[in-house]
């Protein structure tokens, strides 16, 4: 029977299945971070040992300070320390602030080669789908499930449905993976992928860099999907080669052989298929409080009464009130108070290069922050002088962490301020109580920083 890539990975990780269809999957890779202390406490409370510390990796990200500007409180500092203690006690390799390998879980896993094609990976974070960009099946889970994986190195799941989203052709000038995924979310809706694993395919996806594929897979959860994935190809293999945890020697050759068989068979069946036309896609920005509230930068703030059913209209009115916007305002006329370039969606070297290209020779008009996704991204960016470009333009160049994406570490957007952000969620209060978030790609965020309003970077 023809199988999808998902089928192949799922079937090769099946420990056992129950009569009711629930499947116990083996977990190859588990990443913990500084917001998983409750799972370790549950493990202790239930009296279980950590089964495979060697397959578990830790990195501090959610609560770490990103510089002297971070106003961390003692609770936040304690979370970072707890990770270190839990890791030491359980024999887990873990990276804390200042370590050359520390960074955001979804940046660090792939760049260390901890994430591998054909593997099942889990992490207590909904953006774990990011790792699917390398052809891994990666699920975000809650604390109880983390505890379950710590104790048993396995996870119960119902077999999800499968969706394929195909984008052929080339993305137009100025359009990035971020715009593509925002467009996909507006097309299928914030709940459109619920219960599904999404495979992204087609020429436009293959043309994306490995980093771009991570941005794409990262936001699968904003469409409600359990996971997102892209078939691994030579681009991925070259990208992985020589990374610290990647296989070497004979193992590498055998791994490549196996990975080449991962892509979905030509006749494989999906439960649903979506096809998008790449030439239609423009740089996108969000205007509301759900990632599905996105429009091309050339558009205007919509009239909430035209959004659909009564619940959707109600949500739209509520969103506009929260965002302080009125219908009909051209998106480009919206002035901003702050810019955040970072998060597991857009904080990799490629993202920083795109933002720096816009920042070069210009000056920011509002407080603007660049937060690299990991210490090694930071070092690589500095090696090519990107930090100088940012600093000369007036950006604050920070240490790696989640920072203002989730405002858990003391970095937050002040109440009522409007922030152009490269992160993944524009929920009410996400970047701090009362903060207003507009999501966009890194070049667009840099353009907003230098003009002080939402800007179509293609014409800057």
């Amino acid at each position, binding site marked *: 029977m023809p199988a999808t890539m998902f089928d192949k990975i799922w079937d090769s*990780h099946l420990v056992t299945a129950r009569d*009711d269809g629930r499947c116990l999957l083996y977990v190859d890779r588990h990443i913990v971070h500084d917001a998983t202390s409750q799972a370790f406490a549950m493990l202790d409370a239930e009296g279980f040992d950590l089964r495979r510390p060697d397959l578990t990796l830790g990195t501090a990200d959610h609560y770490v300070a990103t510089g002297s500007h971070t106003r961390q409180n003692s609770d936040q500092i304690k979370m970072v320390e707890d990770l270190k203690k839990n890791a030491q006690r359980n024999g887990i390799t873990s990276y804390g602030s200042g370590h050359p390998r520390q960074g955001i879980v979804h940046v660090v896993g792939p760049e260390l080669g901890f994430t591998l094609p*054909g593997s099942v990976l889990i992490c207590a974070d909904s953006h774990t789908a990011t790792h699917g960009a390398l052809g891994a099946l990666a699920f975000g889970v809650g604390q109880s499930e983390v505890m379950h994986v710590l104790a048993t190195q396995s996870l119960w799941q119902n077999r999800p449905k499968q969706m394929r989203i195909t984008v052929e052709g080339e993305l137009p000038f100025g359009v990035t993976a971020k715009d593509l995924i925002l467009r996909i979310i507006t097309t299928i809706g914030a709940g459109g992928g619920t219960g599904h694993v999404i495979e992204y395919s087609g020429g436009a996806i293959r043309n994306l860099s490995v980093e771009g594929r991570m941005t794409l897979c990262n936001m699968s959860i904003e469409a409600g999907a*359990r996971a997102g994935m892209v078939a691994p190809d030579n681009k991925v293999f070259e990208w992985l080669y020589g990374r610290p945890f990647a296989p070497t020697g004979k193992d590498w050759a055998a791994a490549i052989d196996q990975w080449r068989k991962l892509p979905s068979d030509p006749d494989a069946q999906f439960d649903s298929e979506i096809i998008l036309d790449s030439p239609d896609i423009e740089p996108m920005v969000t205007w509301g409080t759900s990632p599905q509230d996105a429009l091309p930068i050339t558009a205007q703030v919509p009239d909430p009464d035209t959004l659909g059913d009564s*619940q959707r209209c109600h949500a739209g009115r509520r969103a506009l009130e929260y965002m302080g916007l009125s219908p009909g305002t051209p998106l480009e006329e919206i002035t901003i108070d702050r810019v955040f370039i970072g998060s597991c969606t857009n904080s990799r070297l490629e993202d920083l290069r795109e933002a720096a290209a816009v920042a070069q020779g210009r000056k920011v008009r509002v407080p603007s922050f660049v937060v690299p996704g990991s210490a090694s991204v930071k070092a690589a960016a500095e090696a090519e002088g990107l930090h100088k470009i940012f600093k000369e333009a007036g950006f604050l160049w920070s240490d790696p962490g989640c920072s203002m994406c*989730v405002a858990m570490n003391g970095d937050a957007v002040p109440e009522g301020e409007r922030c152009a952000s490269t992160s993944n969620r524009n929920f009410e209060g996400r970047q701090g109580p009362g903060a207003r978030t507009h999501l966009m790609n890194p070049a667009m965020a840099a353009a907003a920083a230098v003009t002080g309003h939402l800007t179509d970077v293609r014409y800057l």
Partner: protein
Amino acid sequence: MQRFHKHRGLVAAMPLANVDTDQIIPARYLHRPREQGFGDVLFADMSFKESIQVGIDDSQGEEVYSNATILVTGENFGCGSSREHAVWALMDAGFQVVIAPSFGDIFFGNALKNGLLAIKVSEKFTEKLFSEAKSQKDLIINVDLPTQIIEFERSKIEFNIDSFWKYALIEGLSETALTMQLENEIRAFEAKHANHAPWLQNLPKGTEE
């Protein structure tokens, strides 16, 4: 895990779609130890005016909300972040049942694992509950897990639930303890897997902190 059998309780209606876990509990409270509880910060940044029990005035809304044990809400409830605190906050605030047309997948799993009964029903049914809750502020409904029935006044509907979760909820079983009994199967799989993809089992050692 807390056992669940039958429950009779007051309804809080929240006719909103896509209520995400950042709204259920904002990130700034997540560092608390589990024992401290999260009930006081449930929906901390949401205003009752717009969200809870649309149609009745504020003071009544607060009163209904503080006594309610059954939350009825719109589609895709609990989307967004995987934080289990969203479930803990609802339970700590006294909720035992959440009824919606659909849920965020991770939230749904987290709920059942903790003994919070999350029930998927048709949109027509939630609409009916919303309008009932609007016309009478003390709407009481019965939820019976063994028979899988929701009942109020003259209405009665059956709901679906995965048979494993039904059993686990009624017995109050911990999933991890059950899986620990499968140690032999896991061990056998591990050996087979190490043969099939040795690079996944023998991880090169990283540098220690």
